[in-house]
């Protein structure tokens, strides 16, 4: 047994990473970086627990010197939310996958929460969290973190749940035949298997989170206005003061921050998680990360991971004594208890329905419902038209790019960056243009909805086009398939499943974005388009809770219906008929 230098396996075993040795040069670099990070985090966290009065004593300043600090506060919020989402995911998704009863409730709940307009929640959560920590910044901080959390947790949990449901059955049987305890099984099988998908999902969710951080730092609910130090508040203030330079500074800072955490945080994790990909043959292309490569060379890393692995060991030490080797046959399920459970679930659903209907209709009339419905149709039309328009632009472009591997390689990260970039930052510019040229807000505010989400179409189409097998392309060119025939029979069918994935994400995101895109301000000029988004935004500002609830419910209904009736069938069709290989 020799520690052979096999280039095919550059990654050391996890267990080997835990062996301590003497520090080296990379350790020194890593130590300085980590110590710096720790200080910064501490500094940022200090601000989060101050009394609320400090916020009023130290109002937000549009001082470029303060911008790094604001950026730090914002990014800490994002990571706090990501951490919370991860913990939530590990606990809730595992429960849903393991317990039939809980799964019955959790899975549909996650599915619905995924498509609910998260921005609408802000109204309720800010009030709740401020009440939790009266007079302290922490309450507002938590409300903001919670807003980001709600944009990440559901789809992370859902993806984790789906991974747990698609565990390879032979590995499950191995665990069962060796009678692995639930904890050990979770650490050996469930967690590693689901890690790559979870990491990828966390990365996408983080991008989505930016959108909400901007919207959630400076929020007005009724007559309470709270402004947390952060890029989002900076931006809100800059817009109010019509300060172009400040807006540009915020945009620049945001770009730097996005690139930084991508390179320093996510790339290394993606590169690390690659080892857990479930494949029996070594893949040719591995994700790369210079940070990961550097960290791997340090000997300090084990120390860093020690707490994590300690948690694992602690869990294993606490696991119950080994059960009997041979499993007992499952006893006949208690029919009465089963029936009772079902009744309880349905009763809960009915009660919730009745309660919300009572709440909404208690203050609102059927006319309000009709109005919301009409506005929802308006927004629906916008979403559909925009998706169609965006598809006409990005599908041909994406295919063209995707078929040129070199070009695709350089465009793909840009598209992903643009998807991560919070488009609401750019809204003020649209207002200026619309006001200047006296354009109709009902039409010209619409493009804002898809500004941030259209990139999902682009980068999925690029991925699809680069995945067209070269033999198909060669066959097409050999038989002289060109022009419309080529699009109809080669390109479009080949990218279809990818396109649907992108369009589905884009449409869901657009619904959500409508809440901020249909009502936009720049200084004193306030523009509004008719739609459900503006309805919710106005109700939020006015503190009209029943209207907010009605708007959210209506929007959820539309998003869910759209997903079920349009996207799912299309997706199933693509998977069934057009998936290559």
């Amino acid at each position, binding site marked *: *047994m*020799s*520690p*052979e230098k*096999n280039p*095919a*396996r550059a990654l050391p*075993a*996890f*267990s080997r990473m835990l062996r301590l040795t003497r520090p080296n040069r990379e350790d020194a670099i890593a130590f300085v970086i980590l110590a710096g990070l720790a200080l910064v985090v501490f500094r940022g966290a200090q601000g989060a627990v101050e009394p609320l009065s400090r916020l009023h004593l130290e109002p937000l300043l549009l001082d470029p010197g303060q911008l790094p600090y604001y950026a730090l506060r914002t990014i800490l919020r994002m990571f706090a939310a990501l951490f919370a989402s991860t913990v939530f995911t590990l606990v809730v998704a595992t429960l849903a996958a393991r317990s039939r009863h809980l799964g019955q409730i959790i899975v549909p709940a996650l599915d619905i929460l995924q498509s609910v307009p998260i921005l609408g929640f802000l109204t309720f959560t800010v009030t709740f969290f401020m009440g939790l920590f009266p007079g302290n910044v922490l309450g507002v901080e938590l409300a903001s973190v919670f807003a980001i959390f709600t944009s990440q947790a559901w789809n992370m949990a859902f993806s984790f749940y789906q991974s747990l449901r698609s565990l*390879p059955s*032979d*590995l499950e*049987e*191995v665990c*069962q*035949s*060796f*009678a*692995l*305890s639930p904890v*050990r099984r979770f650490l*050996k*099988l469930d967690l*590693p298997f689901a890690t790559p998908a979870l990491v990828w999902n966390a990365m996408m969710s983080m991008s989505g989170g930016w959108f909400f951080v901007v919207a959630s730092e400076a929020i007005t609910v009724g007559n309470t206005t709270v402004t947390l130090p952060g890029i989002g508040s900076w931006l809100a203030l800059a817009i109010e003061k019509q300060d172009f330079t400040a807006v540009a500074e915020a945009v620049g800072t945001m770009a730097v921050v996005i690139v930084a955490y991508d390179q320093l945080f996510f790339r290394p994790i993606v590169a690390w998680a690659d*080892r*857990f*990909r*479930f*494949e*029996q*043959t*070594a893949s040719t292309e591995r994700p790369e990360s210079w940070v990961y490569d550097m960290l791997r060379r340090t000997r300090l890393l084990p120390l860093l991971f020690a707490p994590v692995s300690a948690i694992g060991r602690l869990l294993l030490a606490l696991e119950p004594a*080994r059960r009997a*080797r*041979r*499993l007992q*046959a*499952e006893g006949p399920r208690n029919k009465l208890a089963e029936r009772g459970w079902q009744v309880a679930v349905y009763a809960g659903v009915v009660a919730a329905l009745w309660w919300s209907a009572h709440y909404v209709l208690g203050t609102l009339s059927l006319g309000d419902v009709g109005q919301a419905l009409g506005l929802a149709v308006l927004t629906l039309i916008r979403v559909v038209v925009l998706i169609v328009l965006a598809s006409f632009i990005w599908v041909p472009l994406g295919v063209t790019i995707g078929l040129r591997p070199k070009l695709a390689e350089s465009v793909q990260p840009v598209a992903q960056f643009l998807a991560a970039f919070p488009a609401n930052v750019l809204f003020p510019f649209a207002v200026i243009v619309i006001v200047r040229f006296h354009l109709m807000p009902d039409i010209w505010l619409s493009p804002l909805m898809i500004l941030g989400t259209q990139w999902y179409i682009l980068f999925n189409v690029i991925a699809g086009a680069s995945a067209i097998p070269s033999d198909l392309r060669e066959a097409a060119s050999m038989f002289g398939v060109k022009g419309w025939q080529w699009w109809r029979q080669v390109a479009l069918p080949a990218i279809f499943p990818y396109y649907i994935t992108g369009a589905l994400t884009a449409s869901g995101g657009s619904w959500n974005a409508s809440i901020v895109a249909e009502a936009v301000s720049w200084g004193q000029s306030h523009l509004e388009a008719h739609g459900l988004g503006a309805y919710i935004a106005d109700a939020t500002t006015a503190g009209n809770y029943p209207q907010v609830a009605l708007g959210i419910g209506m929007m959820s209904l539309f998003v869910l219906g759209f997903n079920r009736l349009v996207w799912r069938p299309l997706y199933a069709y693509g998977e069934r*008929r057009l998936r290559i290989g």
Partner: protein
Amino acid sequence: MATIAPLAPLVEVEGLNHYYGPPPGGHLVLEGVNLTIGQNEVVGLLGRSGSGKSTLLRSIAGLIHPREGEVRFVPTEDCPDPSVSMVFQTFALFPWLTVQENVELGLEAQKVPAEERRARALAAIDLIGLDGFENAYPKELSGGMRQRVGLARALVVNPSLLLMDEPFSALDVLTAETLRTDLLDLWSEGRMPIKSILIVTHNIEEAVQMCDRILVFSSNPGRVVADIKVDIPRPRDRLDPPFRALVDDIYARMTARAAPESPLRDGLFPGTGIAMVLPPKVSTNALAGLIEEVDGTPFNGKASLAELADSLQLEVDELFPMAETLQLLRFAELRGADLVLTVAARRYAQSDVDQRKAIFAQALLAYVPLAQHIRRVLDERASHRAPARRFRDELEDYMSEDYADETLRTVTHWGRYAEIFTYEEDDDEFSLENPQ
């Protein structure tokens, strides 16, 4: 069938019935299985896919709980707590664990101290011939080496009974042979810490080569139909006449018509009339190839199944459904271990494409009631179209959803080839029209 087990029993299986699907009811997969596995013997479970042999293996492994019946481990003096462990067809290795970590998995679950764990794992890896690969990840290994890891992992926990689920079927012929030989060497030298081996296979030669006793399973539902003692001295030579004779004998038993007391059957497929379950993935191309092979030299219309399997490089699992389809269509007769072409089939072999289709269409309409039924429905309707859903529902009255689906797919394939009807996937519809 009573089993005479001269050896001290290790595992006793009694009155095992198992169904797929929620109780009560479901699809019967194992029916009244009784068997005993003695100490110091290698027992083979031979049957086709769907015969429930994997289900039986998993019942013994404790991975599934049979609806009725009992699996009993018999404690002895030197082995007070008999245990099992299993080798999987797909290896079932954790890709994120190294060879050694994979092997240590079972020991870890038993809370064996780290030092002892390591020593035992290294010993098992050494035994199985993987020295030097302790640190490798499964994806760096070839299929044969992966299965060696699977074997080491199963052996390291010192099971009394080693269960093997088609352990060599995912490997190429050469690798499988090497691994089989190595395993047999370890077994005959008594170097493995086990009492007995139970191996599931659908490869008849493999069973005869490895086992002391072979249990032949019938399918739908699975039942033990034969308990054959293999008395050929080891090491066994495949070309040895007694070896060949036994292989032929088993082929004959596996293709024998169902016992006379069982309900009347068309051919060998379960069910009668339109309720007949047709075999999945029997392509008309392969059928034509089989007919041509048997029709040509050296077979001249009559071939032993063992030779056919050899010359066509087909597993029993692939050959049997084809042979039985030929029998269903009256293109061949199974006589003992031989497949004999009928006049129709020999005419088919000599015909051109269109004539072949005509002959096939005739046979299909005459002997496959479901094909007949679909054609009749299409003929009766003015539009000459009928939704496939309708037939699927009809079939589901008689068989499970999966079987209904497969049966319909098979009849669709045959019908398309014979041009007696066509099917459009987009509309999920049968019709008589030719595509525009």
